[in-house]
């Protein structure tokens, strides 16, 4: 009787192993041959073996007592996606953790109460102004310091800039209008931008605004650390700026320029800014070697090519506003008096902040003596003839719609046989066909018409 039971058990397990085949043998292939093999060479079955259950079970199945070891159910909840309330709560936790980190590790080094910032930004109306200005606005909103944003623009740009700044009512903005227009070449543009910044400095001097002046260009990328370090400025300081000159040109051009470009630092991109020796003393400036760039530099704004900065850019410099006041207590005598009146002759003297001081060695290096790159200099502009909708809003329906050259649905031939008397059972199917053909044929017809009309317009 017992032998019969054992034989039937063996046949059952034999058939089961045949059914499972390779997987079953693999499961036991690595278990060592037990020395106590009073069984025959048949692989031993664990006593808790049960036939294979479906791998993934929703939680709706009734709970079974879980065995200590052996096969378990992989439980997946029916809707395995994040809950938005919980995600928001997680972000609150993250911000609590990060503000605690800031409070413990960064705030002890900073002056308290925090000093005010005066951010000077020249801007003008063009395709990418909305992108750059609003991203700088977002950066300034995150800052845990009081900020006055001085935006200087040429006369014609008022409306566009107003539209962008209207979305940030919480920012305190001081807008200045520069008499003149923005030229088309990079060299001239940087000169006009310098004059716009000097206009802002004059405003600071005349109104005796108090704070730390940061020259933040709208297309640059600023780290929060730059502003933390800037809080500790005495008179004038400089941070290392990473130059991303290759933005806006094609990959293949980058490769050939990189092979000849030896002057970029070990990071792979050039850095301009203060340089210190090994004992931590400020000894000089890291300069940009433009010899590798000749021939590939873009001349006109929006032209394809490299855009390289001047030897000393305004970006990366941070000053105490009392540097430009008429009278300030305790101002050292190595500061030149800022007496720029407003005429062109005065303005050509000052091309970068170092012209405001007589002795350059008093500039304070920021970011661990210039070792940390605290901001990224980027200049990428769209072509001069590129068009963009006013305020980047399309609120009226477009008058002319031209479909893309490649439609997601297949192009149907013009002659389609559409059954006229559809049977009731195939109603839905043919309705779909109707709508499909309708959809695909309508724009095709229209496109043909539109293309004809467009060609007319272009030729006329």
């Amino acid at each position, binding site marked *: 009787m017992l032998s019969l039971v054992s034989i039937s058990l063996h046949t059952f397990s034999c058939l089961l192993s045949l059914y499972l085949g390779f*997987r079953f043998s693999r499961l036991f292939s690595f278990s060592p041959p037990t020395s106590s093999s009073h069984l025959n060479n048949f692989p031993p079955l664990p006593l808790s073996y049960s036939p294979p259950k479906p791998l993934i079970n929703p939680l709706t199945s009734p709970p079974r007592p879980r065995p200590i070891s*052996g096969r*378990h159910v*992989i439980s*997946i909840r029916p809707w395995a*996606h994040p809950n938005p309330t919980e995600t928001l709560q997680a972000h609150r936790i993250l911000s609590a*953790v990060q503000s605690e980190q800031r409070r413990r590790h960064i705030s002890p080094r900073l002056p308290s109460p925090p000093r005010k910032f005066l951010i000077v930004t020249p801007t003008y109306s063009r395709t990418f102004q909305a992108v750059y200005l609003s991203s700088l606005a977002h950066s300034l909103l995150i800052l845990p310091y009081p900020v006055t944003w001085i935006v200087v623009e040429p006369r014609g740009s008022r409306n566009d800039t107003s539209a962008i700044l209207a979305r940030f009512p919480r920012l305190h903005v001081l807008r200045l209008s520069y008499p003149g227009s923005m030229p088309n070449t990079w060299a001239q543009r940087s000169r006009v931008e310098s004059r716009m910044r000097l206009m802002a400095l004059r405003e600071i001097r005349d109104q005796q605004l108090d704070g730390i002046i940061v020259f933040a260009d709208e297309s640059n990328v600023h780290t929060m650390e730059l502003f933390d370090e800037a809080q500790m400025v005495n008179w004038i300081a400089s941070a290392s700026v990473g130059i991303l000159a290759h933005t806006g040109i094609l990959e293949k051009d980058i490769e050939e320029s990189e092979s000849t470009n030896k002057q970029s630092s070990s990071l792979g991109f050039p850095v301009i800014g203060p340089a210190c020796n090994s004992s931590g003393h400020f000894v000089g400036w890291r300069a940009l070697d433009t010899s590798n760039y000749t021939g590939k530099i873009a001349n006109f704004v929006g032209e394809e090519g490299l855009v390289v900065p001047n030897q000393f850019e305004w970006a990366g410099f941070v000053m105490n506003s009392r540097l430009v006041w008429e009278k300030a207590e305790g101002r050292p005598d190595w500061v030149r008096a800022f007496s720029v009146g407003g005429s062109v002759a005065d303005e050509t003297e000052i091309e970068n902040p170092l012209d405001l001081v007589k002795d350059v060695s008093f500039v304070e290096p920021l970011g661990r003596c210039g070792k940390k790159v605290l901001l990224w200099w980027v200049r990428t502009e769209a072509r001069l003839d590129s068009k963009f909708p006013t305020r980047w809003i399309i609120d009226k329906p477009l008058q002319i719609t031209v479909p893309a050259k490649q439609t997601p649905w297949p192009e149907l031939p013009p002659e389609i046989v559409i059954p006229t008397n559809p049977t009731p059972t195939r109603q839905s199917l043919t309705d779909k066909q109707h709508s499909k053909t309708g959809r695909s044929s309508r724009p095709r017809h229209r496109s043909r018409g539109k293309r004809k009309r467009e060609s007319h317009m272009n030729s006329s």
Partner: protein
Amino acid sequence: MGSEIWIVALLLSQALILPIAQAAEPHTERISGSAGDVLEDDPVGRLKVFVYNLPRKYNKKMVDKDSRCLTHMFATEIFMHRFLLSSAVRTLDPEEADWFYTPVYTTCDLTPGGHPLPFKSPRIMRSAIQYVAMNWPYWNRTDGADHFFVTPHDFGACFHYQEETAIQRGILHLLKRATLVQTFGQRNHVCLKEGSITVPPYAPPQKMQAHLVSPSTPRSIFVYFRGLFYDVNNDPEGGYYARGARASVWENFKSNPLFDISTDHPPTYYEDMQRSVFCLCPLGWAPWSPRLVEAVVFGCIPVIIADDIVLPFADAIPWEEIAVFVAEKDVPSLDTILTSIPAEVILRKQRLLANPSMKQAMLFPQPAQAGDAFHQILNGLARKLPHDKSVYLKPGEKVLNWTAGPIGDLKPW
């Protein structure tokens, strides 16, 4: 009478002075374990350990054969031996010793892939105990009750990597009365003996210290995990590995942006842990993992997903206050559990983790430093002193059966 009052007064004054002497740091919290501030106890003077001098084949020869034993997560046994040889608690006079240590490396027989094979380990251990019992009288005096062994393998002294086989084997019979220092710890499990000391797995301290980033780097990852979810080589059908818990984590949270989980091996693994708030420490084939040590060292709150696990130095470290415990059946609602923890509780856990004595207790630095895991093991042994009188056998009394266990274990090594 007078001397007794004097002793009581001395003890009282000590109890009053000690808390005043230890000033609390502003941004960390002192860990008060169930037995007081035991992490900072100094074991020197509280116990004496005698180290048996076993032939090279039990220890040095194995390391010479395969030096990978010094860097894998079972290297505790080797470093414990080296630490004890030069420690102040070591005594060369066995008559005054409280504890006896047998330096036998049972986890140093490695496959080409680096995994330890446990098949010879029972025989190696038996052979070592036989050597000790024949050459010194101290084993037979207590049948091993004042001896301790380091058995860091997956299931401790059950000497197998597969849980079912380990349970079938049970703890090696000859170690019935000895104290085991092991990594494995699970309540109500055959392979966890009463009175064992659970230790963290070995993680190389210099490697971790080399990857420290500034503590002001903001923690922006909510949950972090790197490792296997399915073990297709050993568990092709699924459902065995990690009791299905890791697979459940993957299936439920692979598309959740708060969970940064994958099977990658990024070079910035340690740096990423320092940028995370929670680090998952789910069970694998065994309930413990080196992730716990890494999470503690890098200040990431460990999320323990292993039912009934016994964590290292559980009598000295209040793990309930530091880590988050999630039952395996609750894994599908892991995101709800973690986001419902109040922010103050999370900040407090981070302060407890920032305590340097907490980090030090998880590490095995070379050379040994005060408060590290070696000292916590000695503290644990010291807390078990003095030995109960029943430890010493009466002459002629025998408790151990030297022929018990599977026949394969009895083969000499």
